[in-house]
C-alpha cells in the first residue's frame, strides 16, 4: 500500500447536542457521540475493532481510549488516545486510516467529547488558561490564549495590510451559517460593527473574534473502502491526508504569517490528485478569526496576504466560491476544546452526503477539512470526496 487515497471511507457520523450541556459529563457526551455514529452507520458495537480517542480536560483519564473501550465493553484490536490540540481529530483520522490500510483493524470508531463550558472546576479552568505557552519563557508574561493568536494577527496586519474588518468578516460569515443551523450555540446574526465593538480581549482581537467555550462531542465510523457500500448512507472517501508540524511555542515559529498548513495542504492535495479549485466546501479551524485567513492562503485558496480580501468579498459564505464552516464553526456552532474540529468533519460529511438541509452546498463532490493545534503549531489537512 503506497497511498491512502481512496483506501477508507467515513460511513457513520454524529454530533451530540452542544453548547451548555450540564446534564451530561464528558464521558457521557463521548458515549452519546459514539452511539450516534454507530447508529448512523447501522452497526453494532461488536463490529468495532479499532478505537481512537482524545482525552478530556474536564474528566481526564490516564488511558482514555482503554477506559472508553471498557465503558462500552468493546475489545478492539487497535486502541489508542492521541493528543495534538485542535489538530487532533484529523491527525487521529489520518492514523486510523493507516491502521485500516495496513490491516491492523477493519472498522474504527473515532469519538471525542469534552465539557469545557459546564464541566471544569475553577482550578481546572485556571490551569487550562495558564498552561498555554512555554512554562519558563512565555507563561510568566501573562498571556491569555487569545493573546498568543493576537501576535499572529498583528504580524499579518503589518505584513499584508490586513484589517480588523476583514478578520471580523470571518466571524460574521460563520454566524450567518449558524443562523441556518438549529444545533448551533450562537444563532443571532452579527455584523462587522458588532465584532469591532465587542469587548477588547487582546488587541487586535475582540470577543467576537474568539471562538466559543462549549460542551459537546462528535464521532465518526471509518472503514475500508471495499466494505463502504454496505452501510445505510453514501460513503465519504478519504482522498488525501497530510500533516505539517512547524513549532510548539509561538516565540519559536519559523514565520508568524505562514504556517505548516503549507506542508499539510500540499501533501493532502498531492495524494488526492486535486487542487484548491476542485474543493466545493471546506471546514477550516477557526479558533480565532485571523487563523482562517492564514489557512485560506497557506492551503492555496488565495494568494499569500490576500486572505482578508478573499473573505471580505464573500467567498467563504454560502453561495460564495468556497463556503467555509457551513455549520457555524468554532466561532458560532461550538468549541469544546480538542474535539472542536470533529464538527467541521461531520458537517463536511453531511455536505458530501447531500444531507445538509438549508445549508447544503449544491452538488458538493469534494470537501476539505483542516485543523491546527497549539498556536498554529501542528496542522492536518484531509481531502474528502463522494467517489474513490
Amino acid at each position, binding site marked *: 500500500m503506497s497511498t491512502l487515497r481512496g483506501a477508507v471511507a467515513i460511513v457513520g457520523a454524529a454530533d451530540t447536542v452542544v453548547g451548555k450541556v450540564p446534564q451530561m459529563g464528558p464521558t457521557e457526551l463521548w458515549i452519546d457521540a459514539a452511539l450516534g455514529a454507530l447508529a448512523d452507520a447501522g452497526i453494532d458495537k461488536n463490529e468495532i475493532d479499532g478505537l481512537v480517542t482524545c482525552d478530556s480536560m474536564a474528566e481526564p483519564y490516564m488511558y482514555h481510549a482503554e477506559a472508553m473501550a471498557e465503558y462500552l465493553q468493546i475489545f478492539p484490536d487497535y486502541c489508542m488516545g492521541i493528543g495534538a490540540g485542535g489538530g487532533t481529530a484529523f491527525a487521529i483520522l489520518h492514523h486510523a486510516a493507516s491502521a485500516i490500510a495496513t490491516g491492523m483493524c477493519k472498522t474504527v470508531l473515532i469519538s471525542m467529547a469534552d465539557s469545557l463550558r459546564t464541566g471544569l472546576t475553577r482550578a481546572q479552568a485556571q490551569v487550562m488558561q495558564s498552561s498555554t505557552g512555554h512554562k519558563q519563557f512565555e507563561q510568566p508574561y501573562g498571556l491569555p490564549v487569545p493573546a498568543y493568536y493576537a501576535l499572529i494577527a*498583528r504580524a499579518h496586519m503589518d505584513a499584508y495590510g490586513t484589517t480588523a474588518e476583514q478578520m471580523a468578516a470571518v466571524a460574521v460569515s460563520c454566524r450567518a451559517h449558524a443562523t441556518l443551523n438549529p444545533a448551533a450555540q450562537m444563532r443571532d446574526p452579527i455584523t462587522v460593527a458588532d465584532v469591532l465593538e465587542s469587548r*477588547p480581549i487582546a*488587541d487586535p482581537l475582540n470577543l467576537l473574534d474568539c471562538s466559543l467555550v462549549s460542551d459537546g462531542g462528535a464521532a465518526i465510523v471509518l472503514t475500508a473502502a471495499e466494505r463502504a457500500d454496505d452501510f445505510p448512507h453514501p460513503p465519504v472517501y478519504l482522498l488525501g491526508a497530510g500533516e505539517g508540524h512547524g513549532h510548539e511555542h509561538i516565540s519559536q515559529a519559523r514565520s508568524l504569517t505562514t504556517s505548516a498548513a503549507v506542508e499539510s495542504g500540499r501533501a493532502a492535495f498531492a495524494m488526492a490528485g486535486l487542487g484548491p479549485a476542485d474543493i466545493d466546501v471546506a471546514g477550516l479551524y477557526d479558533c480565532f478569526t485571523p487563523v482562517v485567513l492564514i489557512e485560506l492562503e497557506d492551503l492555496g485558496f488565495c494568494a499569500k496576504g490576500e486572505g482578508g480580501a478573499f473573505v471580505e468579498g464573500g467567498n467563504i459564505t454560502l453561495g460564495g466560491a468556497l463556503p467555509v464552516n457551513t455549520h457555524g464553526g468554532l466561532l458560532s456552532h461550538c468549541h469544546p476544546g480538542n474535539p472542536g474540529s470533529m464538527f467541521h468533519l461531520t458537517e463536511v460529511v453531511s455536505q458530501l452526503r447531500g444531507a445538509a438541509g438549508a445549508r447544503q452546498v449544491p452538488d458538493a463532490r469534494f470537501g476539505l477539512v483542516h485543523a491546527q493545534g497549539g498556536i498554529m503549531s501542528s496542522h492536518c489537512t484531509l481531502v474528502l470526496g463522494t467517489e474513490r
Partner: protein
Amino acid sequence: MLKNLPVPTPLTAPYWEGCRAGELRIQYCQVCERHQFYPRSVCAECLGSVDWVAASGKGEVVSYTVVRLAVSEAYAEEVPYVVALIRLAEGPQLMSQVDCEIEQIATGRSVEVYFDVWSDEVTIPKFRLVS
C-alpha cells in the same frame, strides 16, 4: 493566586541567575557562529555544544499585543499590558513584556532589556522602548 512563576531547571539556571545579576544570557555555538534562545542542551543546528554568553539586551519588536483581559487574577491589576515578540540584536527571538504607553508600541520599535524583580528567587527580563 500567584503569577506564572518560572521554575529553573539545571539547564536553564544560568539564564535565571543572569537575570538576577542584571545580565540577559543566551547560548552561542562556536561552530555555527550562531546564538540560540531558549536554552537547550545542544545547538539545534549542528547538535554540538553551546556556551553561555551575555546578550546586548537590545532588540526590535517583531509583533505585539495589548492584553486587556488578564490570564489570571495575579495579572489583573496590570491590565492593559503589552506583550511582544522581540528579535534580539544577536538573532534569536523571544517573548517579553514591553513597559510603555500602549499608544507607543509598534512593530519595528527598538527596545532594551531591564529586569523586573518579583522575589528573592525570581527576576524576569522585560523591555523598554528606546528612541
